[in-house]
């Protein structure tokens, strides 16, 4: 038994998040569409179709840039975690905005072609062997299809059905997608800019995304110090009661080491439901609650309390001179592991 699927698991935070999201998107489009002719002073007069296409395209680029910044920011600084929790709604809205951009482009630039509109998108420019005049439309089509796949597979069901490894691999598609979007913009509309402000904005956005991702990746690599096959987690005394320290294992998985009173236990950091970060949850009566959807697990055996049936792997711990080490090899989901005594509790008791 488990929790039945619902279209959206609403809570107060999600309502607020989505309200801010919609307001921000609406404001961006309003400024671009209604104020832009005066404020942005386009060099040449453009018709409403082109103006709408540019507005939605610019909006999708900014949204995608923000989405790609949220992940590494949350890994670098926990204060950004609340932004990460509801990122899927951000992604779905971005895909819708990108689809609107495609709609305006399709029904203006390709609407008067003697061949089918969709066929015209593919056949209008086939100079694939040169950078100057490269068919940037194809990059946009690839990015749009990828965004649709990513947003369509964002429901809880897909993580469980596809399994986290397959789902994660599928969602790594976001990286080539963003590179394609930057290529689409750089080789497309920015080829015709007299005012270089947009060029600078795009380059700064791309640079920010690149720097944040590489920095977050390097930070995690440096933190995952290995010691004779066991991974060093840190000082036992640094783990607050009822809380966890998350450690990166050599294989790339994360483990959450919890203190519950004078004992330490370790479980996989990924919730069985949707890979939520269990290590950011709090323990109450040996049960940790996933901050994303409220699933609970006993930290000594990785099992959800009856009648629920979710199980996650557990890990073996050892403590030497007050330093906690974890065995990177996980135990089968639901395996009981005797909690280890915490030196801090021993010295204070």
């Amino acid at each position, binding site marked *: *038994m488990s929790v*039945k*699927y*619902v*279209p959206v698991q609403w809570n107060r935070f999600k309502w607020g998040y989505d309200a801010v999201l919609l307001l921000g998107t609406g404001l961006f489009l309003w400024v671009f569409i209604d104020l832009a002719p005066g404020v942005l002073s386009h060099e040449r007069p453009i018709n409403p179709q082109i103006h709408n296409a540019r507005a939605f395209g610019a909006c999708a680029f900014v949204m995608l840039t923000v989405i790609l910044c949220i992940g590494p920011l949350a890994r670098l600084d926990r204060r950004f975690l609340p932004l990460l929790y509801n990122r899927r709604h951000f992604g779905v809205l971005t895909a819708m905005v990108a689809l609107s951009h495609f709609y305006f482009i399709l029904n203006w630039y390709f609407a008067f072609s003697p*061949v*089918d509109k969709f*066929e015209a998108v*593919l056949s209008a420019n086939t100079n694939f062997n040169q*950078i100057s*005049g*490269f068919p940037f439309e194809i990059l946009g089509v690839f990015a749009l*299809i990828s965004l649709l*796949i990513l947003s*369509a*597979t964002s*429901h809880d*069901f*897909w993580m469980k059905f*596809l*399994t986290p*490894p*397959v*789902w*994660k691999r*599928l969602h*790594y598609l976001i*990286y*080539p997608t963003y*590179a394609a979007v*930057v*290529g689409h*913009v*750089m*080789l497309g509309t920015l*080829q*015709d*800019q*007299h005012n270089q402000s947009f060029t600078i904005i*795009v*380059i700064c956005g*791309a*640079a920010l*995304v*690149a720097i944040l*991702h*590489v920095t*977050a*990746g*390097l930070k*995690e*690599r440096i933190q995952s110090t290995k010691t004779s096959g066991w991974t060093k987690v840190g000082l036992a005394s640094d783990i607050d009661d009822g809380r966890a320290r998350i450690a*990166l294992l050599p*294989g*790339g*998985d994360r483990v959450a080491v919890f203190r519950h009173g004078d004992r330490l236990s370790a479980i996989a950091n990924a919730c069985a439901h949707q890979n939520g970060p269990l290590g950011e949850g709090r323990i109450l009566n040996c049960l940790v609650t996933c901050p994303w959807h409220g699933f609970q697990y006993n930290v000594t055996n990785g099992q959800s309390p009856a009648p629920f049936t979710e199980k*996650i792997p557990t890990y073996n711990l050892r403590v030497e001179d007050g330093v906690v080490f974890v065995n990177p090899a*996980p135990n*089968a*989901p639901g395996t009981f592991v005797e909690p280890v005594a915490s030196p801090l509790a021993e010295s204070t008791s």
Partner: protein
Amino acid sequence: MARYESPIVTIEALVIDIAGWWLIVGAIVSGAFLSFGIDRIDEDARGAYAFRPLLIPAILLIWPLVLWRWIKIEARSEEWLRRYQPPRAAHLPLAILLAAGLGFAVIAGLSVQQTWPSQFAPERLSEVAQ
């Protein structure tokens, strides 16, 4: 299929037709999976119907993956360990590849930007002919 009346079938027309057939097969898979398949392989979906329409777009797009997972779950041929090992170790290499890809896109775009000469105001090089 009117465009096939011409003896020359363009690659673009073929791609669009394949895309159409892809969606048609996806719709058939979607109908089968959502009407009885999902109940067989996921207990959390039994009795839950409101969320199912949300799955249709994804099934239309990635139906081969859906079929593969459906068969695999029905056959119960999964190893538990693999389910709990998302490939997070790929974060850093992918971040570096992303940075390289973005750098290439930016440099390629700037190197062929065509409008810079026009940023200079035109200068009259000779007197107006009388």
